């Protein structure tokens, strides 16, 4: 258990070293990876896995996954991106994907927050009444 904590702490240090102006910097990540390779910390694989997980969570905070039943125009995506950036006070990029299960409407996921206005969601709300 203590070992697990040490690995997490070290991975956190590497994550902090990878940040530049509040977001992950590709060049810094490369530097961190080179440092790890050269110095080979104990339990290198576990540290790298924890580091990868933290970086993924951090990157997810800057991405809005937009699901919709039909294709969305670039302007809609830009609007969503702008709205989310204002809401979270950080730059958020919108990535669109198609999900026909929604029937109609839209579902936006940023990190672990989901904003949904879709027919599928309303139907499930009706079902649970």
């Amino acid at each position, binding site marked *: *258990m203590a070992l697990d904590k040490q690995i997490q702490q070290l991975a956190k240090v590497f994550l902090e070293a990878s940040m530049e102006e509040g977001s992950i910097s590709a060049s810094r990540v490369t530097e961190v990876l080179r440092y790890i390779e050269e110095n080979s910390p104990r339990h290198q694989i576990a540290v790298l896995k924890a580091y990868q997980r933290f970086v993924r969570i951090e990157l997810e905070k800057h991405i809005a996954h937009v699901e919709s039943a039909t294709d969305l125009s670039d302007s809609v995506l830009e609007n969503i991106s702008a709205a989310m950036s204002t809401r979270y006070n950080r730059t958020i990029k919108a990535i669109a994907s198609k999900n026909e299960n929604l029937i109609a409407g839209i579902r936006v996921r940023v990190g672990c927050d989901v904003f949904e206005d879709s027919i599928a969601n309303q139907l499930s709300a009706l079902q649970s009444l």
Partner: protein
Amino acid sequence: MSTVIEQIEQSIAKLQSGAVKKNIGTIRSLADGVAKVDGLSDAMYNEMLEFPGGVIGIALNLEEEEVGSVILGDISQLKEGDEVKTTGKLLSVPVGKGLLGRVVDALGNPVDGKGPLESSETYPIEKLAPGIIARKSVSQPLLTGIMAIDSMIPIGRGQRELIIGDRGTGKTTIAIDTIINQAQINKVGLASGDADFRPVYSIYVAIGQKNSNVARTIAVLENAGALEYTIIVTAPAADNPANQYLAPYAGAAMGEFFLQNGMDALIVYDDLSKHAVAYRQISLILKRPAGREAYPGDVFYLHSRLLERAARVDEKNGNGSLTALPIIETQEGDVSAYIPTNVISITDGQIFLETDLFNQGIRPAVSVGLSVSRVGSAAQIKATKQVAGKLKGELAQFRELAAFAQFGSDLDAGTKAQLDRGSRIVEIFKQPAFSPQPIEVLAGILWGVQQNYFDSIDVSKIMDAATSLREFLTTRKDSLLTEIRTKAKIDDALEADLKKALDEWKTTFSA
């Protein structure tokens, strides 16, 4: 008509509302009934989490990037990567009088096959205990029907009295006797039509017990006619540790319904040793740091927050009460182990049961020297105080003398008399299981002991004599017993009547 249209419009508006915000996470790992969930940044401590397939979990570990959740349902359908949602609700169980006579699990679902529960209200299982201002000191008795306890270690409504002892010493029997006695008192009280009568409802929480034991307990309560005043919450040994951990809190929530609605209730936690073990199991799986005996650091808080919910509240808060009888199983009589010392320090006294006494045939095997009730004497009725005032001291002295007397045969007359009297008191207090005695009968018998009516009877015949006196009083002196019950004290007139009755009995009893 317009209001009806407005209502429908409001319903439509609810469904037409814009985007709904949800907080989600994904299962990262799943093992031993515990899921580690990534995300869920808005999860609250003890919040219900919704897993796919309607499975419910509880958020117990809130960490920076993940949440440790104990799953309460079937985990076989869950897999890594599944989506988990927060619900914004704390775990709640149904409460109310509709649960009386029913057997439910830790989540309040009926398990007795008697159909759905008649209950519309729910209470959260975790709730802050009543504060200092709302409380009132213990002043009303809670009669167990066990002579040794009611006379020497009295319990009051709102008290927390621990029942502690090794396995097979009669801990559960004392608790069941108490529940049966409440039912008997309730029947008499409700039949009398007394407007001031306050019935006591019981909740029996079985934690980590064999299903056969629980079934036996239910049968005993049913045969004694006590089930109709009792709720049974069961989390048997085969249930997952999460349910065993939650069961006492669910029972406490059901008891709080009576407390908050101005009624009296009794709750038995059978037993908190197994509860602590279930919590240890969950904590170790959640990788919380282990402390003494591998229990987590908050194992004291686990029991203190539960037992603090037992209280007597003042008139402003409904004048209700919740009395708790937690049970702890010791190993080889070791009361200085971690969990026993914790619970001893939390409760307002303990009834200690000794294996040696049990094996000698002294049942209930209450150790008078080690048992104590810290607040109950304030609630004891005057009649019991009058007849049992000196008994505890006499019995404790007898035990001490008896231990010394076995080394030598030359004893002075005073010591011999003390030993003689002590052995008679021990015999008087022997009582078969599941036969609680009314307080008026107890007062009558102990008055007889006080007035030396048993001194001429051979020690081996004392139990028969006590049984004979009990029968005599209940069958032939019912009015006298009613008078003791209603007056609740022995005045000169009553003393004269008692003397007359016992003289009459003495002539009929042939030792």
